[in-house]
Each structure stands twice: as structure tokens, then as C-alpha cells.
């Protein structure tokens, strides 16, 4: 019994400690620039000031266009990756591609190389073929980077579907494409959702590719914009606007994460960080 109480005490104390930076973020994003001073950092803010800061972020910074374009990237690219990944898993497991595991392994190894290894040629190639600083270019690269993990999960998931499902459909005269879209994809909805959410979060939070492959404010995702805001406004009173921007760009992933915690848990068990 006492050991249980000690466990609660330790966890709650640590939890409060962990929430302090979040508290500081909220408290200082909720202060008007005029109210903000170095001496009242720990004081709570007020809601009208937060609203005014949000208005400031939307009217004086590039963050709104960044949010808009990032939503597009974070929806379309993971969607493409999930479908392509499911196709890969389907080819290996259901259609029994010859040397399927080898080709699957070739795709899977894409997750092993750090992105740093690819960005220099990608930057050069994108500049050459006119994909640098384009929405299409960003969607393409995000889809490819998300593909290995989704192929990994979907292959594992399809491996759990009984072979007789496929054989029965073939006997009924269904073509592989129909079996894929009418049977395999609907059966694996939960896995598709897990992969989609994890990859959408990854795209949303990406900084490196966004920083290197984009330039203009219409194309640039929101994370490099936030960082640029920091180097311009860091220090002084504009911290309130910067912190509000950090809060705004974090809300979508935090919500997604909170609403789908059990999906995340399942996805994490599969090895994605």
C-alpha cells in the first residue's frame, strides 16, 4: 500500500515538472506584448491577450499560409504513401511476388539511411528539374520518405490475413486489382489509419526537408517559418507572438495525438518513433 502511494507521489511530481514548460508557453502566449516583461514570466496570462496574440500571428506573420500548405502536405503525402505501401505489402504477401522479401527489404532500408544523406542531391536535382520550391515536389518527397514505414506495417498486417481469403476471391473470378481495393484495403482500415496518423504527424513536424527544399512563403511548411520567426523575433517582447505561433503550430498534432492515443500506442509497438 505505501509503495503504491510512493509511486503516485513520484509520478505526479514528475508530471507537474513535465507540465511546467507547457505552462510557461501558455502563460506567456497569453500576455499582451505590453504586459510582457522579464520579471513576470511565471505569472499567468489572460484569455483576451491570447486571442489578440493569435490575431497578431495571423495578420503579421507568414504562419497562416504555412499552416495551410502544411495541412495539404500532411494529408496528401501520407495518403499516397499508405496506398503505395499497401500495394507493396499486397504484392509480397497476397500475390507472392518472386523474391518479394528482397524487394520489400530494398524499400524498407529506405528508413535506415538518415535524410541528411539524401538532401544534397535532392536539392541539386530539384533545382535542375524545376521541383525546388514547389508543392508537387514537397508532396513527392514526403510520399517517398513515408513509404518504407507504411510498406513495413502493411506487409505485416496482410501477413495476418488468411490466404484462403485471397484464394476464394480468385476462385470467384475477381481480378487482383478488385481484390486489393474491395477486400484487402477495407479489411485493413485500422492499420491504414495508424500509418496515416503517424506519417501525417511526421510530415507536419518535419524541419530538415522543409528547410532545404523550399524558399517562398507560399510553399514553405510551417516549421521552418516558426524557426525563422524565432531568429528574427527571439528576445525582447515579441516573444509573446513567437510563443503563440509555437502554440498554434503544435495544436493540430497534439489534438491528433490526444484523440488517437490508442492508435499511436499500436503504431509505436510496430517500431516507429
Amino acid at each position, binding site marked *: 500500500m505505501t509503495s503504491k502511494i510512493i509511486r503516485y507521489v513520484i509520478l505526479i511530481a514528475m508530471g507537474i515538472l513535465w507540465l511546467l514548460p507547457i505552462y510557461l508557453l501558455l502563460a506567456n502566449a497569453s500576455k499582451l506584448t505590453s504586459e510582457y516583461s522579464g520579471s513576470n514570466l511565471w505569472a499567468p496570462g489572460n484569455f483576451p491577450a491570447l486571442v489578440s496574440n493569435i490575431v497578431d500571428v495571423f495578420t503579421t506573420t507568414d504562419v497562416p499560409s504555412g499552416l495551410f500548405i502544411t495541412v495539404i502536405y500532411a494529408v496528401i503525402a501520407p495518403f499516397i504513401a499508405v496506398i503505395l505501401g499497401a500495394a507493396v505489402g499486397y504484392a509480397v504477401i497476397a500475390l507472392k*511476388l518472386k523474391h518479394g522479401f528482397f524487394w520489400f527489404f530494398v524499400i524498407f532500408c529506405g528508413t535506415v539511411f538518415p535524410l541528411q544523406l539524401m538532401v544534397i542531391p535532392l536539392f541539386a*536535382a530539384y533545382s535542375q528539374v524545376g521541383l525546388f520550391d514547389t508543392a508537387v515536389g514537397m508532396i513527392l518527397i514526403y510520399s517517398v520518405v513515408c513509404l*518504407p514505414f507504411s510498406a513495413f506495417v502493411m506487409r505485416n498486417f496482410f501477413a495476418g490475413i488468411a490466404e484462403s481469403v485471397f484464394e476464394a476471391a480468385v476462385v470467384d473470378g475477381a481480378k487482383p486489382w478488385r481484390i486489393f481495393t474491395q477486400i484487402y484495403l477495407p479489411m485493413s482500415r485500422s492499420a491504414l489509419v495508424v500509418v496515416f496518423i503517424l506519417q501525417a504527424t511526421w510530415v507536419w513536424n518535419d524541419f530538415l526537408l522543409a528547410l532545404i527544399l523550399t524558399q517562398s512563403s507560399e510553399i514553405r511548411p510551417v516549421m521552418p517559418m516558426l524557426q525563422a520567426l524565432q531568429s528574427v523575433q527571439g528576445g525582447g517582447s515579441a516573444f509573446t507572438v513567437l510563443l503563440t505561433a509555437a502554440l498554434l503550430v503544435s495544436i493540430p498534432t497534439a489534438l491528433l495525438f490526444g484523440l488517437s492515443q490508442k492508435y499511436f500506442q499500436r503504431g509505436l509497438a510496430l517500431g516507429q518513433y
Partner: protein
Amino acid sequence: MPARTARQRDAWAFMGPGVAVVLLALYIPVLYTVYLSFTEYDGLGDPTWIGVDNYVEMFHDPAILLSIVNTLAWVLGTLIVPVGLGLLVAYLAYGLRGAAWLRVPFLIPYALSGVAVGVIFSFVLQNGGALSQALAFLNLPGSELRWLQDAPLNTIVMILAASWQGVGVNALLFTVGLQSIPKEPLEAARVDGAGGFRLFASMVWPLLRPTTTIVVGLSIVNSLKTFDIVQSMTQGGPNRVSETLGVTMYRETFLNNEYGMGSAVAIFLTVITVAASLIYLRRQLSLGDAAPKTDAAPKGARRA
């Protein structure tokens, strides 16, 4: 026979696009980076072949050597703090009523991006900022420290910021691992009077081995690639003292226009990362293979 070849053709129709885009967008760039690492190239004109000069120079450049040391500090730091605390949180919360709620404070930071974490901690750690004020208020030493200006203090506090973000996900992974441990041996040990640390050391820790391997492997691989938090908090500065290899590669290539050197740094980083990945890659793939074996067992003849 024809049916089988038709099946193979269909299979390639599904596999082809995935293989094609991965080869085109991931493998070819990798090969080109390998080539660039043996050249001198400023992004204009043509690369000049210089053999291994970049690699030799790399290990004589004090800034890059410091960057390697910092990267190793990141690997060690994120291995000890977030993995250790993640295990602590998972183990303490396991089996408690409301465990899911107790873990929430640790999960919120995980949903944030590296840049957002960087913004928050740059704010907390500014000179005379929230942390310094709190230390002064509590009469603790340290309020006069310049957290982000002085090395190695800046690297240490950035590792702690990354740890703040990383504990939650490790706790989740360890929780999943704990849930998969069979209950009977634990109960038996408890009946025999084992408890607390002894129970953990003799029973739980060995049974958690598979999870620990994955968590440690992921932690090493991810810390080697550290870029976002450092780039957004110190940009590797001041005077390149807090650079990690990820930041060094970015600086050499895109700020100094030393494409060859940037590539060499990227290759060096990759060789270590791939070596570290091998620790957990095998286990990850064997986890994947476990599924068909158990599921196909009743109708296993076909597979075998």
C-alpha cells in the same frame, strides 16, 4: 504455368511503383552523395575529384571533431535520461489505477515538433529567464549561468530539452512491453516475497529485453541524426561549439557551399547510424515474421 506468370506480372504492377520511387528518390541520391564526398564542389560548375581529402580534412577540423564529440554526448545523454526515465515512468505507472492519465503529461511534449520544443526551451533558458528566476527564487545555485551560450552547458541543456520531449514515447513503448510480460511468473515471485527493486532486477528487466533492445536502438539512431532542436535553439553556436553532425552537414553544405565536405560528413554520420541500426533492425524484421507464423499455423502446410 501461364496463370502463375500472369500472377507475377500483377504482383509487379503493385510492387513496381514503390520500388521505382524509392530507388529514384532515395537510393540514387545516396549514391550521388557518396560520389560527392570524394569531390570538391561549391554548387556551381562541376565537382572536382579529390579522393579521400574531405575525410582526412574532416578529422583535422577542430569544429567537426567537436561536432563528433557533441554527437556522441547526444547519443549517451539520450540513452541515459529519456530511456531511463521512460522505463521509470512505465514501471511506476504499470498496474496503477489511472495509469493512462498519469502518463499524459509525458506524452504532450511528444506531440510537439523539434522546432516548437526549441522555441519553448529557448524562452525558458534565456539569460535571466524563467529557469534562472525559478532557481533564484528557490535559493538554488545556477541562476547566473548562461545556459545556451557556454559549452558544454548548452549541449547538456539541449539534451535535457530533447529528453523532456522523448520520455513519453519511451514510456509508451515500455508500457507495451510490460503488458506483454506473462503475469504468472511475476505473481509467483511476488508470492515468494520478492518485491521492489529485487523483483524488477531479477524478473522484469530480463523479460523486458526485447523492448529494451528496440528502445535503445531507436534512441541511438535518432540521437545520431539530431538536427531540429539544435538548429532552432543555438544553430550550433556560438562559434560552432554546440554543433551535432546533422547541423555540421547542413552548415558545410548550405551555408558554406562546401558540398563535398557536407557529403563526407553525411556519409560518416550514415555509417555510424547504419551500424547502430543493425542492433534493432534484425529484431524489428523478426517481429514482422512472427505474425504469419502464428496466423498461418492451422493451415501451415501451404506455407511450408
